[in-house]
């Protein structure tokens, strides 16, 4: 996220694309409403009429997977009409000609046809976004979980840079992070290609630095991503250590994931509950929940925040920090840390961006990185006056349509996502009595016309099948979803939406295409 969450309240135009913030990030939605109360315009792009769309000024219900046509059409119009920020583009961004060449093939009319929304609406939205003094873009998994996810993100960045809506207090790009510490896990180098602080593993100088700091020889070639590791489990990958993750429910095509996990020589799972993944493990280690540990989380606005221990772990369980210290020592490493504080000191030493982070400074309100030294006040928004690489660069986003489109055999679009009362694989929320009462059953949202078509009503059960498998869920009939599409939340272990999803990956980010695949529906005759 380039800016801070509270900055959203001052934006004049907020362009929300592929995010159901009202259900997945409700507190951020509060800031968006503040902007609306001040007279800001809220534009929502989403195939579904979500709670966010319901409360927006303009809702663009585009066809699934046509984000790039829409954005390209908008950019074409903005360039043609001269609404873009010439000064900003000239002074701070390279590659404008490439972008112009790219959008030349995307007339507004062509975009309108692809997205199936009127051209006038695209023009209107483009003008509002470009002409507002400060516009923000909010996006989430609706953008990234596509086979062209990285290109989608590139297109959004291009749009923001084109209009000069980067590097000021209330503009910027807001990717909403789905988990409390995804930002932190990335920052800390839990990625196959970078060390802590996004330092490249294949860079010799950096590798040498870490070899010095850690006292071991390190591998210089980037590793496998989560989706690749799971896929090659049992072949290239023989032993796997999974800490508090649940790929048996969260990865696409979980039937294959289950086979892969079962074929491992050795699988260790460290978690707080017996998850679907832990059932495949040879060894299960009981970890600690957020209330049982001291440490830091980094939220989506890059804010390091202190987590404080409130209770003891149950029974013989240990907090993850202690377990990792034991494991590291057993692996022959020097893991003689007595307190998470020591680890933070080491992080600050080896990753320059977090150099000024100490527990004392986090006590009151946390600290937003980059914060290179102890006197640095933290950075509420990035790219002020200058981009990380100096000048920004327009990268041309190539449009690839979704890899699996509805056809005669599988005529429906299927997308998966979250709903407000549950969270991710439901390991925690399904065990919270209150939340589980709010929604206790898996369901699929479908349009009244489609429901009529296959002869089902609210509460009836249907079988959803794709080329990967099928699940049985209850129907929820609602106008929020367009005819020809269905939506299934993936929180429910009894009806695993990820049995259905298509495991094609974005070539760059290796994110699976959760948002579009083709499905077939059948009524299940009552038992």
């Amino acid at each position, binding site marked *: 996220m380039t800016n801070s969450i509270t900055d959203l309240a001052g934006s004049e135009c907020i362009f929300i694309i592929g995010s159901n913030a009202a259900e997945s990030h409700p507190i951020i939605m509060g800031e968006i409403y503040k902007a609306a109360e001040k007279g800001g315009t809220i534009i929502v792009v989403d195939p579904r009429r979500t709670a966010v769309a319901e409360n927006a000024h303009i809702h663009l219900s585009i066809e699934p997977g046509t984000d790039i046509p829409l954005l390209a059409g908008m950019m074409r119009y903005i360039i043609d009409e001269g609404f873009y920020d010439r000064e900003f583009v000239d002074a701070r961004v390279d590659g404008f000609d490439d972008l112009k060449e790219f959008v030349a093939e995307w007339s507004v009319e062509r975009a309108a046809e692809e997205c199936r929304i009127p051209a006038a609406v695209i023009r209107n939205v483009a003008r509002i976004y470009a002409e507002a003094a400060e516009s923000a873009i909010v996006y989430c998994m609706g953008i990234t979980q596509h086979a062209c996810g990285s290109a989608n993100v590139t297109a959004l960045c291009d749009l923001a840079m084109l209009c000069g809506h980067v590097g000021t207090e209330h503009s910027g790009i807001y990717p909403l992070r789905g988990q409390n510490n995804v930002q932190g896990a990335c920052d800390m*180098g839990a990625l196959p290609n970078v060390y802590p602080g996004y330092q490249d593993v294949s860079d010799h100088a950096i590798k040498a630095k870490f070899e010095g700091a850690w006292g*071991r020889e390190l591998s210089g070639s980037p590793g496998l991503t989560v989706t690749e590791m799971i896929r090659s489990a049992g072949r290239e990958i023989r032993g796997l250590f999974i800490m508090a993750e649940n790929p048996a429910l969260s990865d696409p095509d979980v039937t294959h994931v289950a086979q892969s996990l079962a074929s491992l020589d050795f699988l260790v799972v460290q978690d707080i509950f017996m998850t679907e993944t832990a059932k495949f493990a040879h060894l299960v280690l009981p970890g600690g929940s957020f209330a049982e540990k001291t440490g830091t989380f980094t939220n989506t606005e890059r804010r390091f925040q202190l987590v404080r221990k409130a209770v003891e772990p149950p029974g013989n369980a240990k907090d993850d*920090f202690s377990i990792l210290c034991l494991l590291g020592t057993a692996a022959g490493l020097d893991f003689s840390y007595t307190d998470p504080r020591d680890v933070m000191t080491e992080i600050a030493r080896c990753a320059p961006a977090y150099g000024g982070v100490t527990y004392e400074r986090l006590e009151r309100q946390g600290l937003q990185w980059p914060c290179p030294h102890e006197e640095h006040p933290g950075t509420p928004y990035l790219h002020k006056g200058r981009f990380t690489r100096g000048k920004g660069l327009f990268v041309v986003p190539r449009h690839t349509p979704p890899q699996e489109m509805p056809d005669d055999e599988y005529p429906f679009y299927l997308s998966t996502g979250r709903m407000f009362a549950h969270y991710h694989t439901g390991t925690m929320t399904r065990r919270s009595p209150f939340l589980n009462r709010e929604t206790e059953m898996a369901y699929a949202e479908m349009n009244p016309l489609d429901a009529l078509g296959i002869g089902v009503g609210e509460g009836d059960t249907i079988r959803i099948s794709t080329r990967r498998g099928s699940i049985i869920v209850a129907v929820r009939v609602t106008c929020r979803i367009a005819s020809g599409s269905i939506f299934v939340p993936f929180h429910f272990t009894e009806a695993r939406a990820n049995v259905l999803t298509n495991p094609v990956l974005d070539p760059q980010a290796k994110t699976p295409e959760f948002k579009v695949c083709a499905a077939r529906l059948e009524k299940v005759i009552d038992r």
Partner: protein
Amino acid sequence: MNLVRTICPYCGTGCGLLLRVVDGTAVATYPDREHPVARGHLCIKGWTAHEFIHHPDRLTSPLVKKGDSFKEISWDDAIKLAMDQLLGIAGKYGGDAVGGLSSAKCTNEENYLFQKMIRAGFHTNNVDHCARL
């Protein structure tokens, strides 16, 4: 009464929570009014963040798989088993045969230690977490 100021375990907004702890049990959650983002607001999941902490399903001991069922073992044995097996695999097939999935639910410190353990302990960069999912 003891109110512990901490951070919500769910989405990336990172709202502040006050957990009320009575006799070692978290019994209630309140919003943290001093938190810079949440400012005393929480969503439905935040308000109930204390509910799963003491759930009877919580794992309380290391478990090893024997046949189709799990058996409790001691921590010493569990740590030894884990490292013997994983280091054995790394020795036999090379470090790249071992992988680690870290977690976006764990703290920065734990993530740092985890990737350090995988990278330095097994000579591989096969470490990732669920940011892509």
